[in-house]
């Protein structure tokens, strides 16, 4: 390789690439960490989603259970129905509602983590 006496060492400067990637402006996770207005908005949106899921399941529960006493009172000649529903049939729907809620709530949280960590 030919040697050129005029050749010099040149220092190239600039912002480090790693730092630029993590300290990007408006990164959601930083916003949440510092509890800025934007971070607060993220938390509120997660709360709203979770609350909506909870209220949906509660509505299903109320529609499922609420009319039952009226139905039993309207049909006093069928005590076997009361035995079957209250003694046996109601428990499985309760567990299924709970499982459905937990799946939804965990999915919301996973989506939220993915969103704020920008993965």
């Amino acid at each position, binding site marked *: 390789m030919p040697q050129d006496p005029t050749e010099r060492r040149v220092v190239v400067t600039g912002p480090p690439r790693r730092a630029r990637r993590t300290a990007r402006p408006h990164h959601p*996770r930083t916003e*949440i*960490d510092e*509890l800025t207005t934007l*971070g*607060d908005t993220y*938390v509120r949106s*997660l*709360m709203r989603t*979770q*609350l909506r899921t*909870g*209220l949906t*399941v*509660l509505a299903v*529960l109320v529609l499922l*259970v609420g009319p039952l*006493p*009226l139905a*039993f*009172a309207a049909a006093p000649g069928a*005590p*076997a129905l*009361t*035995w079957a529903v*209250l*003694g*046996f049939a*109601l*428990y*499985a729907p*309760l*567990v299924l*509602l*709970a*499982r459905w*809620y*937990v799946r939804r*709530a*965990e999915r919301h*949280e996973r989506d*939220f*983590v993915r969103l*704020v*960590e920008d993965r």
Partner: protein
Amino acid sequence: MNSGYTVPAIALVVVTTVLVGAFGLRISRTTSDFYVASRTVGPRLNAAAISGEYLSAASFLGIAGLVLTQGPDTLWYPVGYTAGYLVLLLFVAAPLRRSGAYTLPDFAEARLASRAVRRLAGAFVVGVGWLYLLPQLQGAGLTLAVLTGARDWLGAVIVAVVVTATVAAGGMRSVTFVQAFQYWLKLTALLVPALFLVLAWQSDGGPRHAFTEPAGLREQRAVRVADTLTLRLDRPLTVTVTGTVDGRPHRKAPLTLAPGPHRIHAGTRLTFADGAPVPVPEGSAASDRAREERPLYATYGLIVATFLGTMGLPHVVVRYYTSPHGVAARRATVAVLALVGAFYLLPPVYGALGRLYAPDLALTGNADAAVLVLPDRMIGGLGGDLLGALVAGGAFAAFLSTASGLTMAVAGVLTQDVLPSRGVRHFRHGTVLAMAVPLAASVLVGSLPVADAVGLAFAVSASSFCPLLVLGIWWRRLTPPGAAAGMLAGGGAALAAVTATMAGYPGAGPVHALLAWPAVWSVPLGFLTMILVSLATPGRVPPGTAAILARFHLPEELRAEVTA
């Protein structure tokens, strides 16, 4: 009944409880171990522990007794006890765990930064806990008295001593093992005899009239009425009476009672003819009388109280702090729903069989003993004795587990907020105090209507802690004055209403039903007061509210950075 197997069975349960507790003692070293088992309890173990703790004397004995005397409508109790966990899961479970507090008062203070609200919540925890401990101790007394003829107070003293020793020695970690073990013990103790009882019922021809008709005696049976009661007859009833009926003494006199109310005095022997329907006495508990007057309203009152009251029971809430994170708390709750629901399939079986084979218990005032006497009545012999001993052991497991959970919660509050300084030694003093008060009450007061005490605990919890937890977790504008006013208005009104009915004020009518089943109006009252007073004091919103709510709701993976 032969007590030759019963006493060893109860002794075995008690000794095993102490041993499993001692196993926890060896690894319970720090304060955090004591209160929350250092938060390392996985969902499965925690779910079994929560269920074991929750299934109390009211579940193990009380439901079958209620079904026996009042029919299938009382099955709303177990449905409500289970569904309460669904509501707790939807709005409370994960945020409560993420709040990072030890007890309900800790939660109130962390959320609202107010010592006053903390003390008020502590007072409600102690009150609800003591109300709930009382029927456990009385149930233990009843079991031992029915099975072995011991004095009424002996069972209560045994449970009190064992629970105080286990909790004071090992704290929460040992209690976790004890509770998980006791869930499976209780399930076995109801399931195995139930299988044999159903087989006996089938070989008896599988009579079905218990499902459709009032309970009837299948053979001639003499019944001794323990407490004075009033029978309200729909049709004439022929009995042979030795004793006092309607104020007139009789001696082996055949008597035809006309339709209408009849007063049977304590100590009277009634001999019923073969196949006679057993008249059901008017409920002695105030809540039962209101149920007879206004059945629909009482049912909705029961539904509201149990669905919303479960989340605020101190022994339930304290278990959530032992989950490692919010996701585990949620999953544990689903497992609890399955475990508790599976257990509640069994008491109705005992209730239905009790209507067939032991309907006289309703007259003697010992309906709660149906679960205990059925093996002897239906199977008899050695098999009946062994199954009866198994049920008795399970019943004692029920008293021990619920009582230790409640004692744990009450002792935690007493140690942190009432006794002068903190630390493990003071926790032990708190444990003794937490158990001494209800034990003294149960020995001194004698028999209080158990259903009333449990119903009161649920109604008070639903009207005070449910608004505090739900609004505290989901509503940003909650203020300390609002929370205090709501707890006092809702919980205080529920407490006053049920105390008034238990004291006998007003005896009948719509006001009586409203007071005996207060949850329908006291829960909305608690919520409304909390919301309106908070809105009226907007300047008092705690400054850290946004950060605290972020901690309640953010997944743990994000949280390390938030709190750092």
